[in-house]
């Protein structure tokens, strides 16, 4: 199995979630993160002192999927999350040894 991790723009989360559901991926875990890259942050000014916020809000999405699905899942995410503007994010794939469903103790593909 593979762990697909995607960094995407926050407002794309819903679309990506729905596209994955349509594809057949029904589980995922997401969190709010801050990204640093080509996309620039912004400046803030408080009583004349300027602060540069270098980080940009992003969403990090993780889904464990079967080996065979990994490539397609990446494609689905890339296609849906793409706006064509800088800062759209990254998707990477990590091989995993095993996965367990806590509720039942099932392992492997049945646990996804």
């Amino acid at each position, binding site marked *: 199995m593979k762990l697909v991790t995607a960094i995407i723009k926050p*407002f794309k989360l819903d679309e990506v979630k729905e596209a994955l559901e349509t594809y057949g991926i029904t589980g995922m875990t997401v969190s709010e993160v*801050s990204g640093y890259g080509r996309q620039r942050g*912004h*400046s*803030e*000014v*408080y009583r*004349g*002192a*300027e*602060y*540069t*916020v*270098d*980080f940009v809000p992003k969403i990090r999405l993780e889904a464990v999927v079967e080996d065979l699905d990994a490539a397609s899942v990446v494609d689905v995410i890339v296609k849906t999350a793409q706006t064509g503007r800088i800062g759209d994010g990254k998707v990477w794939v990590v091989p995993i040894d095993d996965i367990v469903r806590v509720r039942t103790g099932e392992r492997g593909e049945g646990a996804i």
Partner: protein
Amino acid sequence: MTLTSLAMAAPPTPNSGDTAWVLAAAALVLFMTPGLALFYGGMVRTKSVLNMMMMSFISMGTIGVVWLLWGYSEAFGADSSGGWIGNPFDHFGLHGVLTATYGTIPGPAFVAFQVVFAIIAVALVSGAIADRAKFTTWTVFTVVWATIVYFPAAHWVFAFNKFAANTGGWIANGGFFLHGHGAYDFAGGTAIHINAGAAGLALALVLGKRLGFGRDPMRPHNITLVMIGAGILWFGWFGFNAGSALSAGPLAAGVWVNTLGATAAAMLGWLVVERLRDGHFTSLGAASGVVAGLVAITPACATVTPIGSLIVGVVAGAVCALAVGLKFKLGFDDSLDVVGVHLVGGLIGTLLIGLLASKGSPNGSGTQEGLFYGGGFLQLGVQAGAAFFVLIFSFVVTYIIGWLLHKTMGFRVDEQDEAEGVDQTEHAETAYDFGNLFSGSRIGHRPDHPIRTTNKEEVDA
């Protein structure tokens, strides 16, 4: 030029108790605008709370200054135009007011009490255009709108003959098509709420809908702020309504009680509708019901009985709870429901006077009774006339002002800025920083100028 103020003729000594109450009431009403800022600010998303609050705060700045210059005079200077407008030069810079006595209170106490009304009337409008207005244009709008729309309306409604000036406005004194029957609007259902509500609708149409309106969720980001705001508004509103007696006596006290009764009933009315329709009593609903009740009792607080106040309240709460959904049906983005709460609530209060006005009210035996008390349709007609005149005037003129500003200065930020959030793009700020993350980022990228400080030359230049 003319004898502008009765008070000048024979300045009696003000009554200290009445003055004490009006000064306290004025402070209470001043406090309502920061309260409104919280009420509104809590209802928008995190990314525009500061902008929302700033639209209220800047009104305190601009209207505060303008009032001292020409606003007071335009609203309460002597009218030589048949009830339409006071002379803005009569009391420019409050000339001659400091030493006057109006009724039983000093001139400046009346100035104080009325300026805070002007401020909040303007601030209320901003709820219709959350998340997307250019702040500079809004700032200009506050001045223009006050001058062309609010000060005249205040003159019509609050300038009684022989009070601050010999001749006052037409709605208060029954001029124009009212044929001598003044409308009852004790504390500003028409001049403030219908006016601000209609103006809000006009601006919402001029600016258009927010990106994602009706599709994306735009839930309130901080309901505790909304609740604080509602609490402050309720508190301050006792100054608004009971202070409008301009004296500390049975009238003010009766109005106080009616204000409480209507608000309590409206909270319950709104919550019952929510429970029946959506299945829950929400805290946003309770806060909204409070405001709806306060709005509706504003014009009516002196002329209905305590039981009447409960009726005004429960009707306002229930109807406004239904009305806030209209914008989705009709497709205008009155973001924080200025129409659903202030226009609708203001109409309910103003019109219900026509039904419920009673000699058993704080206003007492001189009251022209309403339909339910055997007074026939007279007062109802007068109320409706005043209400709809203000509504239409405000909507049309505001639309024109908004449209002109939009075509010239632009009234809406661009899409990118709206998406990022107006706090950041318009004000270079974000409201909260609770974490460890951003407080760990460095200042600037200028090692030589680690902090950019004041630069006198740039300013003086």
